[in-house]
């Protein structure tokens, strides 16, 4: 950053330039076409020997002179002054690159003024032919001004070969030069008809007035062909990314395009209307209306042309905020403030956090954003950020997925300073940096069921398959997962050679009384038909199970299974408890006699951190659940970025399941062809906003794994020396692995999400192995080679080959016990003493059967009445 920034706040965001430019372009184009209008009408008056018409031309030339030379001339200089104040770097670039273009334009400006004065002051005094010649000289000089400025203006949008060769001529005769010249010539002719209405309407000679209204109508409508052809050609020659910016990418463009599409035909129709025989009073009023229509139409065009350039002021050369592309490496290396000349804050420190943030806003944002002003007001755009974390994430992802804005330029501290300034000073949040507050969960005592030890006949093992079932609890708006906790049980008949019992027994499950009626806690059942196409009886889960019932036999795995039981983390009295307990009972089928009883935790969470960035806070006790505000903001963001109408659908009572469009192996949905699968989409998108985060902070921004949160779902001893990223990779690496798989499946959407992601713990993107979510996952044996003590904590990037290989689906080497039966669920493998509700909660069965919190089989006599001599389950299983 080379130049100081004029601190305008309210009137920032390009308001001044828009104000000056829109009025100037209207008058300046009139100044071009108006020359031809005057001379041609003058000639007509001579031919027809029409003194009245000649008198009109003279009067019109006075109006023309006063409007174009005074207002047009000075506002033209005004644009130059304004851009030099608002964007001196770009102005300087244009002045230096095109100095002789400007100088030549100045010569024509002089000729224009001389000829116009002579034309006006010698009316009726000069020989007719010479007088008309003076008029033509005026017109040609004015058109040459247009010719020259057109080249420079279009250079900003399409610099073309200039970017490589820095040649004046390449920049001037850039790709859009000729089409824009045709378009602008057309519009300048249209405008002289538009302004002609004004002087004509005030004529008091009815016949002449009527005749002139028709003439002006022809002047407006006939050049439409030229204007439209030029406009069409103009658009066609634009490079594809610029076309996309106009049509789809830019959020503000829609309104301007709409305006253009309405006001273009309106101008045509209004001109035809003016040709009708109307009372003079109507003509007088309407002539100003038609100027207003032309102003709005042309203003919309100019806004589109300017907007199409985003995020650049000179395409592919300089950003709108005056930063040269070539300066980016230096800024990345040294920081933005350190490389900016005009700031007194050279480095962010705790004492100057907000002041630095303000400085960064002024230097980087104020070129396009006002604070509370009429143009590009920043306030509504950042309103949802009540927390610097979310704002910081937004800045982190800025310009990466939608390139209508530049990336945030600067280092982490600078980004954090800017986020704090925006949230605190612009958004008025008193304490912006709190993040989510630490949650103290009250320990809940539990009763460990009794085990008869050597006298016991059966050992009943039960567990949850994934270690945590998160669901969004946002059913009225959308759902990314219905409630549904899948549990397994295996019943072992103790003995010298223990047997797995799969016949003649019923295994039932039941929650604590507080959790018996999930249908009274969440609205899922009201919307299940829309979300899932299922008409579920309230309280019944998607696989037909209630929160209590009998488990089904999974013959292949020699286990009992209850799929998707709709437990919710909300006990009846209204609190958040992500670890409800189930009592599992095995009964003899014939006699009904209880064979064994145990208890298990069925983890289920609604602590999805969407509100960290999407606003809205928590729905339940300030710690969990999705509010309407959060839910709708997510949909609005999706609608904005993907052109969907999810907000409208939700408001019409038709919420959608994310995975109905985005395929998901876990839910078994196929999604829409071409769209990314759900995991790739959601991680790929958000990874762009959560780069370079320490440890697992990116993960816990969304998942219920925050170390001081209410769920803390990583409960095993591994949590003491590892975090999510050891197995799943950093946010970037994780996303890359998912996106690469989609990319190789030919889904081009992955390219956009991948474009700005850099691998963290891999040498390159190529080094990260693609994976399908829920199928290719890290495995315990990545570290625990041959079931030995793990010597590494790096399980990332080696994936299971198929879902049958997943830890949760695998069995021991005898195909007898499931891994999870003895080691418990992923994220809570024994010893799992770090449950936020109490150290015993995830260890009920080891405590029940062994009196310790180690994996089941420590010792072997839990099931084996005689100590086994060989390692039947897996190598190293007899380790003491």
């Amino acid at each position, binding site marked *: 950053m*080379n130049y100081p920034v004029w601190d305008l706040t309210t009137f920032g965001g390009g308001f001044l330039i828009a104000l000056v430019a829109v009025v100037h372009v209207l008058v300046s184009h009139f100044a071009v076409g108006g020359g031809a209008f005057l001379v041609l009408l003058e000639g007509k008056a001579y031919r027809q020997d029409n003194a009245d018409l000649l008198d009109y031309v003279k009067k019109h030339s006075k109006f023309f002179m006063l409007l174009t030379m005074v207002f047009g001339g000075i506002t033209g200089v005004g644009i130059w002054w304004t851009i030099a*104040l608002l964007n001196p770097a770009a102005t300087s670039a244009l002045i230096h690159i095109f100095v002789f273009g400007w100088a030549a334009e100045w010569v024509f400006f*002089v000729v224009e003024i001389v000829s116009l004065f002579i034309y006006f002051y010698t009316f009726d005094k000069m020989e007719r032919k010479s007088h008309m010649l003076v008029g033509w000289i005026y017109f040609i000089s004015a058109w040459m001004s247009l010719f020259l400025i057109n080249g420079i203006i279009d250079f900003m949008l399409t610099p073309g070969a200039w970017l490589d060769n820095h040649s004046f001529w390449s920049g001037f005769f850039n790709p859009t030069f000729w089409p824009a010249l045709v378009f602008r010539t057309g519009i300048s002719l249209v405008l002289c008809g538009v302004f002609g209405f004004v002087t004509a309407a005030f004529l008091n000679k009815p016949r002449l007035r009527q005749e002139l209204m028709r003439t002006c109508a022809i002047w407006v409508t006939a050049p439409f062909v030229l204007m439209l052809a030029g406009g069409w050609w103009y658009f066609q020659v634009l490079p594809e990314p610029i076309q996309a910016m106009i049509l789809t990418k830019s959020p503000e463009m829609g309104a301007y395009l709409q305006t253009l599409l309405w006001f273009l035909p309106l101008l045509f129709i209004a001109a035809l209307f003016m040709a009708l025989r109307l009372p003079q009073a109507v003509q007088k009023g309407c002539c100003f209306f038609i100027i207003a229509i032309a102003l709005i139409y042309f203003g919309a065009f100019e806004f589109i042309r300017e907007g199409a350039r985003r995020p650049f002021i000179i395409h592919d050369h300089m950003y709108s905020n005056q930063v040269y592309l070539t300066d980016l490496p230096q800024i990345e290396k040294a920081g933005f403030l350190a490389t900016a000349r005009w700031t007194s804050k050279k480095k962010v420190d705790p004492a100057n956090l907000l002041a630095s943030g303000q400085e960064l806003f002024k230097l980087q944002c104020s070129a396009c954003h006002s604070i509370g002003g009429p143009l590009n007001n920043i306030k509504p755009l950042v309103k949802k950020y009540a927390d610097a974390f979310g704002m910081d994430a937004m800045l982190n992802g800025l310009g990466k997925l939608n390139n209508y804005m530049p990336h945030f330029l600067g280092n982490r501290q600078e980004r954090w300073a800017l986020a704090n300034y925006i949230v605190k000073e612009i958004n008025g949040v008193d304490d912006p940096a709190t993040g989510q507050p630490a949650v103290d969960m009250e320990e809940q005592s539990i009763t460990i069921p009794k085990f008869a030890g050597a006298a016991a006949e059966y050992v009943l093992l039960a567990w949850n398959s994934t270690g945590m079932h998160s669901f969004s609890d946002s059913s009225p708006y959308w759902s990314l997962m219905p409630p549904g906790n899948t549990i397994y049980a295996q019943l072992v008949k103790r003995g010298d050679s223990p047997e797995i019992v799969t016949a003649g027994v019923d295994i039932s499950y039941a929650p604590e009384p507080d959790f018996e009626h999930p249908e009274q806690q969440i609205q899922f059942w009201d919307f299940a038909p829309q979300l899932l196409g299922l008409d579920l009886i309230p309280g019944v889960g998607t696989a037909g199970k209630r929160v209590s019932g009998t488990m089904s036999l999974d013959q292949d795995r020699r286990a009992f299974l209850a799929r998707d039981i709709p437990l919710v983390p909300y006990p009846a009295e209204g609190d958040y408890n992500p670890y409800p307990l189930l009592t599992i009972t095995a009964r003899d089928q014939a006699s009904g006699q209880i064979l064994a009883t145990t208890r298990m935790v069925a983890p289920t969470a609604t602590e999805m951190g969407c509100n960290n960035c999407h606003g809205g806070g928590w729905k339940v006790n300030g710690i969990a659940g999705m509010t309407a505000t959060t839910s709708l903001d997510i949909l609005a963001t999706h609608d904005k970025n993907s052109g969907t109408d999810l907000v409208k659908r939700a408001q019409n009572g038709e919420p959608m399941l994310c995975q109905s469009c985005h395929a998901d192996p876990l839910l078994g949905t196929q999604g829409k062809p071409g769209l990314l699968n759900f995991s790739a989409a959601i991680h790929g998108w958000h990874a762009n906003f959560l780069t370079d985060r320490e440890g697992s902070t990116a993960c816990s921004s969304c998942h219920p794994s925050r170390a001081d949160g209410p769920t803390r779902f990583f409960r095993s001893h591994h949590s003491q020396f590892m975090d999510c990223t050891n197995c799943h990779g950093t946010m970037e690496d994780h996303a890359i692995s998912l996106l690469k798989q989609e990319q190789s499946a030919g889904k081009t959407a992955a390219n956009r999400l991948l474009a700005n992601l850099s691998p963290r713990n891999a040498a390159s993107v190529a080094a990260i192995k693609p994976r399908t979510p829920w199928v290719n996952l890290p495995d315990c044996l990545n570290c625990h080679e041959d079931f030995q003590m793990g010597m590494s904590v790096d399980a990332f990037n080696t994936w299971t080959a198929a879902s049958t290989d997943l830890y949760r689906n695998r069995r021991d080497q005898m195909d007898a016990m499931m891994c999870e039966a003895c080691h418990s669920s992923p994220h809570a493998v024994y010893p799992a003493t770090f449950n936020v509700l109490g150290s015993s909660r995830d260890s009920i069965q080891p405590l029940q059967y062994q009196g310790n919190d180690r994996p089941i089989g420590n010792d072997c006599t839990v099931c084996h009445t005689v100590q086994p001599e060989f390692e039947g389950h897996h190598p190293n299983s007899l380790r003491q």
Partner: protein
Amino acid sequence: MNPAALIPTADVIPVPWGWFYALLMVTFLLHILVMNAMLGGGIIALISTFKGGEKNLLVSREFSYKWPYTIAFAVNMGVAPLLFVQVLYGQFIYTSSILMATWWLSIIVLLILAYYGAYIYDFKYNALGGLRIFMLEFSVGLLLIIAFFFSNNMTLMIEPERWQAYFQTANGSLLNLVAPSLLPRYLHFVIGAVAIAGLYLAFIGHFNLIKSKIDRPTLIAKGMTYFTLATGVQILAGVWFLLALPQPIKTQFLGGNAYATLLLISGVLLALVALYHGHRQRPIATGVTALLLLVAMILLRDLVRVFSLQPYFHPSDLTTHNEYSPLIFFLAVFVIGLTLIGYLLKLAISCRKEVTK
């Protein structure tokens, strides 16, 4: 903070700096001539109206016809030097303009108002009657304010030492009021404008371009008197300006730098000669001397800038891209433009003669 650290990096220029220097000096001379006629003419018209009496009123009426042209050409002729000064000194003038952005941008609005005021004064001269003087005060007042902003910016751009003030006031409301040379510089320009405008009126008389009912000798006499009086006062203002310059710069003009000193001496001598011719009421001789004087003054003014910026920059430091074809294109356009203007003026003059016949 070191002022040098605040100076933005300059952009590359297409041809060696000397070209732009020459263009800047020539076009600035053109601008200053027309600007002086515009501003000084307005002041003379105002003084004449105040003084009253038939002849004085005719002077102001005569100028009313010319005022809109002079504004148009003052703006028009200002574009080129502003362009070339941005090429050579962009990093300075963009910066100083931003520091005083509110005032600087207000010039556009003030100018439009002054311009329309001048047109009203001309087109509605008779209809305005007693309100005429208010219209005149209005436009002249605005032009004087504009001139004051210009003096502020032209001094602020060459004094990076004063740019620190931005860190207290970033809203564009700074002026360079603390500069000791601001007021004498401003006066020097305004008084000079009155002198040149006097000469301009005398020329209108001398070449019989009169449109009002004033007679030639009166207009010439009035014009020459304004020139002579203003030039007399101007010498005093010039001395004040010189003395108000910072010591290191002053020293250069007072013997420290031979070229600067010689130029200053020639300026003073030319002023005395012009004063003499003016007193003798000789428009042509005075005109020629005054033109030379203006050239000397413009070169002196440039030297003040060069000396002020000496610790930081000289245009010869600029990197050159060496692309000559656009320059050739411009020179060709310039020749075509001059030819066209010549032709247009010929048409205008011949038609004027026809009418006179």
